[in-house]
């Protein structure tokens, strides 16, 4: 069943929904990257919560006009209107009062959502239209989705992906350095507006699939996960898109296999799994790689200190150092150095003296200031420079015993 779902053999509608969710995820991951780089990830939370009154109002209007009030495009339009109003209210609060952005976000999201809840109970009270299923917008539900709705979501998702692709350059520039972007002739306010518009579009497309409480996850988690894999913005953008798409696709497919697997939460948990894997295992900034790097560094320092101790005929008390030396064939378990150990120790000691000289020479100031005490001197200085240092070393009569 699961395999069938993942390979798109669960019927036409489920397939369309899965593709739609994947496109939505790609757009969300990419749009979220700009938001994340601009350090405004939680703005999306205000946007998504302020869609609820729009859904309620749109339902009321459509039902009052005589329909059953559940036309998805109409509900999405209503959602867009109040999401826009919420965004404006948030901007106004941060620009014209002394409230910080986080307070404005929280105020807008709770008040708009609260008002939306009031409207939902009004809808239940006035009993027009067919309000069953409106609550699906909270947590998303793809089960029993109409064919037209699935097509709408897939097409809108594709358009959102296209929009991200078109706008990627100015948005990256603004996300990194708004001042520089403005200086190079980019209208930062318009780009910001476009970014918010994109986030709004993703939120509204995602209402039916992921639900308004959880859509922020699809905007936040993929970029955060992608950030572990690269320091380059274009790659982070691409990886976030892939993660978002994977989450949407897997989530929608898995949720189609059983009724007790709600779409929104499954998509979010898939994204969280990708995040956890990235945090643990990503090369570059992952925890495992970081841990390995730390231990490698520790080993190098211990080896170096052990060699210097050998060179000065000092006993080695540190167990770990001795073990490392023995394993490298530089010393015997009782602490007596091997022939190779003596040679390497002499080299280490001579290099230390060379560095001491280099430190006094102004021409090497820049190099020396970055020296970590472990790199072999031949990797940093040229042969001529080393020869010059050795000459001075001989003159000064300094050096290793």
């Amino acid at each position, binding site marked *: 069943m699961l395999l069938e779902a993942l390979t798109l053999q669960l019927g036409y509608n489920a397939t369309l929904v899965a593709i739609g969710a994947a496109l939505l995820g790609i757009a969300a991951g990419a749009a979220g990257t700009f938001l994340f780089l601009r350090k405004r990830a*939680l703005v999306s*939370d205000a946007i998504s919560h302020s869609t609820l009154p729009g859904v309620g109002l749109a339902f009321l209007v459509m039902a009052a006009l005589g329909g059953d009030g559940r036309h998805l495009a109409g509900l999405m339009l209503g959602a867009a209107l109040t999401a826009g109003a919420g965004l404006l209210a948030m901007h106004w609060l941060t*620009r014209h009062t002394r409230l910080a952005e986080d*307070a404005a976000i929280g105020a807008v999201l709770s008040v708009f*959502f609260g008002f939306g*809840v009031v409207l939902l109970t009004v809808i239940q009270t006035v009993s027009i239209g067919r309000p069953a299923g409106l609550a699906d917008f*909270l947590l998303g539900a793809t089960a029993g989705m109409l064919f037209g709705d699935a097509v709408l979501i897939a097409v809108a998702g594709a358009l959102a992906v296209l929009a991200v692709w078109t706008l990627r350059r100015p948005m990256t520039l603004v996300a990194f350095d708004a001042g520089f972007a403005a200086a190079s002739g980019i209208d930062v306010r318009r780009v910001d507006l476009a970014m918010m518009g994109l986030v709004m579009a993703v939120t509204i497309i995602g209402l039916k699939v992921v639900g308004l409480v959880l859509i922020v996850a699809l905007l936040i988690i993929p*970029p955060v996960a992608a*950030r572990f894999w690269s320091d380059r913005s274009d790659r982070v953008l691409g990886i976030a898109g892939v993660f978002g798409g994977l989450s949407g696709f897997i989530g929608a497919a898995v949720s189609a296999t059983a009724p007790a697997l709600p779409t929104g939460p499954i998509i979010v948990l898939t994204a969280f799994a990708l995040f956890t894997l990235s945090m643990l295992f990503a090369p570059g900034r992952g925890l495992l790689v970081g841990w390995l790097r730390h231990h490698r560094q520790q080993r190098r320092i211990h080896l170096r200190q052990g060699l210097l101790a050998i060179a000065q005929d000092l006993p080695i008390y540190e167990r770990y150092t001795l073990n490392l030396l023995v394993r490298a064939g530089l010393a015997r378990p009782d602490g007596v150095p091997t022939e190779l150990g003596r040679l390497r120790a002499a080299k280490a000691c001579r290099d230390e003296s060379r560095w001491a000289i280099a430190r006094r020479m102004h021409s090497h100031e820049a190099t020396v200031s970055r020296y970590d005490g472990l790199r072999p001197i031949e990797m940093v200085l040229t042969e001529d420079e080393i020869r010059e240092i050795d000459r001075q070393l001989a003159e000064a009569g300094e050096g290793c015993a």
Partner: protein
Amino acid sequence: MGAEFVMLSLVPILIGVLAAVACALPGNFLVLRRQALIGDAISHVVLPGIVVGFLLSGTVSSWAMMAGAAGAAVVAVLLIELIRRLGRIEPGAAMGVAFTSMFAFGVLLLEQSDTSSVHLDVQHALYGNLESLIWVEARGWGSLLDPVALAGLPPELPRIAIVAALMLVFTVVFWRPLKISTFDEGFARVLGMRTNLIGFALVIMAAVAAVAAFDAVGSIIVIAMFICPPAAARLMTNRLEHQVLWSVAFAIFSAVVGYVAAGYGPLWLGADDAVSAAGMIATVSGLVLAIAALYAPHRHRSGAPADG
């Protein structure tokens, strides 16, 4: 009117007021410290907490669920710190990752487990059920002095009362460290205060308030009350003492007016059913904030030009 009011409306209004005050008190400091969204995060992670509490205890015993919720709040705070530190991620995004994932986990758990026999669902978690907390035994105002009738009070009322009192005590007792560390963390540290500890205690108190209020009124009021009354109060005055008093006043006003508007407004307008009290209370608190943002004496940043 009297007897009916005591039976149907008195207890929900009281619970609403107490919950609003319990959240608004720590909310003042959260807003000033730019941690307002901690309230948002906590109120989301309460859901997996109560579901786990319910699954472990097997009953809807409120204490088990509250313990679960408190545990979940602590887990969330730790998870946010973990993601922030280990991943070197900015706090907002770390929060977004943690609370959405935990909320999603809670929803999934709820769908997977058999909770059809008990009143536990996502809608309830989001907007509570203030209207249902009626005092069945009440026969009129006289019941307030009748021990038999008092024993039949919904248990949510004493619980939220205790928590509101706890918030008050916390705010009063730790007033000085809270105030100093909020405005000038460096100075607080110079004075020998453990500012990390104070910050953590504040978050824990906020979590306690959120969990208790959530139990009675649902998470949407919790977020609204953490932020809207303190934010509105912030625009009224430059003195923290006055700000806290204003925020309590705004919280009480929102709870009372919101409840009355939700319970009686539709009847006055000719409809037969009430609308969501929790939603209306949040809406009223938003209106209060909107009015404060437009007309309050200290709405501008100090030093900013008058037209913003």
